[in-house]
């Protein structure tokens, strides 16, 4: 049984190909303005990695921000359900999934069967999302992928408390202006975001085991900071960014079995 999941997010599009319980191929790309185009592109690249064609896929499910606009999928599922499903597939002991993507952060509680029992999104303010980290990385002129590494070198403790992404940018620039070290600033940034997300997760109470998914999980600095803020260990999963797409591929399997 060959199924696929296609997750068109706000910043990246992800595709996963599964054969039975095995992940055969996956791909992550930056999104284009049109979700349809992002979806096609990521699928094609993912398929070409293993030399397969679109027709080889028996069923494909879409998820993510742009899911309503992907023409070729047989069904759609919400990101919440997909991230929970993907995480549960990777680690059946998971009870709390924290997904931080580009546009939003979510805390999801999963029961023993892998069903979602409660979830929350980040509050009205957008700080605490991947986008926030990107804007700041941009302002600091450091590559996004380096944030985690940089924060490890931090020696001094600052507090950032500006809620607003845009104003935080100003605040951070003024820290730079004051001659503060970039690693310390990055570490402070991670703590600020992590605290915000910890508050989110704790408001629905955190049960172990905890798994972090979404692109931001690739940032070790954030991973660490979140662990600190939650006060519990976070289990890592390989390729956290594609968890939603894995979930979607699993839903595709259900769909296939049902029909």
């Amino acid at each position, binding site marked *: 049984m060959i199924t696929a999941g296609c997750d068109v997010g706000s910043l990246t599009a992800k595709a996963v190909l599964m054969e039975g319980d095995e992940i055969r191929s996956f791909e992550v790309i930056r999104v284009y303005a049109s979700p349809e185009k992002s979806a096609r592109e990521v699928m094609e690249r993912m398929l070409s990695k293993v030399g397969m064609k679109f027709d080889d896929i028996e069923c494909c499910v879409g998820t993510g921000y742009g899911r309503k606009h992907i023409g070729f999928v047989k069904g759609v599922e*919400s990101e919440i*359900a997909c991230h929970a499903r993907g995480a549960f597939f990777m680690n059946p002991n998971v009870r709390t999934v924290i997904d931080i993507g580009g546009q939003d952060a979510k805390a999801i509680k999963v029961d023993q069967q892998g069903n979602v029992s409660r979830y929350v*999104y980040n509050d*009205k303010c957008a700080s605490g999302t991947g986008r926030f980290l990107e804007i700041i990385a941009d302002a600091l002129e450091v590559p996004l992928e380096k944030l985690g590494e940089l924060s490890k070198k931090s020696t001094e403790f600052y507090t950032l408390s500006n809620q607003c992404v845009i104003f935080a940018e100003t605040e951070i620039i003024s820290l730079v202006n004051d001659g503060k070290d970039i690693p310390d600033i990055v570490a402070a940034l991670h703590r600020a975001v992590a605290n915000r997300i910890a508050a989110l997760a704790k*408001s*629905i109470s955190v049960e172990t085991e905890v798994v972090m998914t979404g692109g931001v999980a690739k940032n070790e600095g954030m991973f660490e900071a979140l662990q600190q803020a939650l006060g519990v260990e976070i289990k890592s999963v390989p390729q956290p960014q594609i968890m939603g797409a894995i979930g979607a591929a699993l839903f595709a399997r259900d769909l296939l079995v049902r029909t």
Partner: protein
Amino acid sequence: MRKELKEYKFDWMLLSCFSAASKLQNGTEKEYQQMLRYIPYFRGVVETVLSTGKPGQRFIEICAKYLDNLVNAKERGYHTAITTFCFSPIIFYAMDIMPICLEVMSVMLTFTYKRGSSDFLDFCNEVGFTETSCSSQRGSLGAYLAGIGTDIDMIVTDTPGVCDTNANAFAFAASYLNKPFFQLDMPPDLTGNRSDEYHREDYKALIAFLEEHTGKKLDLDRLRETLQEAEKQDAMIAELEELARLVPNPLPVTYNFFVYASRFLFAGMPECTRVLEAMLEVGRKNAAEGKSGISNGKEKVRSFFCYIDHYVQSLKFWQMLDEYGICYQGNILSRSWASNAPHVKEYGTYEAAYTLHTDDLDKLIGDIALLNSRMPMIKSIRGPYDAPHMWLQDTLSLAKMYKADFIVYNGTPGCRNTWGMVKLLARDTEKAGFPTYIMYADAFDERVQSWETTRDRFLEFLTVRRLI
């Protein structure tokens, strides 16, 4: 504020729309279509409301009537008072004062204009009011602050002790417009002798204030008449609430709104009674046939709202509920706390309810004071949310009794009061087995969260939690 808005009296504009809408049903189909073209945005609301038949028709009529009374209040010799939705208008009607209920006016604005009340919301900020305060008063208040509404004689509120942002809006208006102001203050406890006495004394002070500013004495016989009508209405509301317990619920999703809006506008007046009568007719008929009130006849899930509805965008929120077969089991603000209300009987919470003794003139003031202290919000939001008769207890008992499958919170970001404790409430209701959804939208201002996002997130909740 845009210049063109200042050119007309805003309440007169509303009246034109509503009175046009109230005449629709009597014309031919062609006239109907013709008329709708004049009120392009309002159309969605009008069609939704009128599609419910006689109750909707009567509802629109009383809205028009209310606006007509308001616009012409001065000419007809009435005094005018700006007041809030959780203030029972009975006392005003008994004293020839036209109550101008800001929240209802704000809803009407969101119904009629594409931009809703946003210009007026912003105008409040221009004159120094905070943009973080609740949009439900701010919407129409802006028009009064701008001086484009009916002349105001006084400002009266009863939300101190319950909701700051609400009370503060009235206090601000009084200072800004330099008008007489009276506050009924609510002690943190609802029940008990101390609270009863406080409510009574405070209410007497209110009457003294109203007498002073109208130059008329309160006529107890007239008050009795109005209260007798209110008593009749309470009985009818109790019957409607009883009907809502049935599975499927025979009442259409819009009825809750009709009930409480009619009460806020015309409690104790025959206008309200007429709407209730029409609703009962439909409800009884549906119930007898075992029919659901949902348009396509299929009730899939039952929702209970622990706060308010979502008014922006032509009632699309209710259309969505109807479309997905989501039965609307009312909200915390739509319940009556008369002692004959079904939930009061069911749970025996008589001390938290009120009883009218219209045969005893001496008791009238005390009764109406108590009635007022049991108005929506005033009743269950004043103390800690988990105290007896407060938010949690009311939410859970109503959700249970009306067999709701899930609970929804919707408010406005200005609602410090509920936002301060809704996370705690949601934990408890979840624990009690009700999936609970917290909406981040603003009930009156689409600019806070677009309708598309509101809808998508709501439907996502229903799917993820496997409710539909």
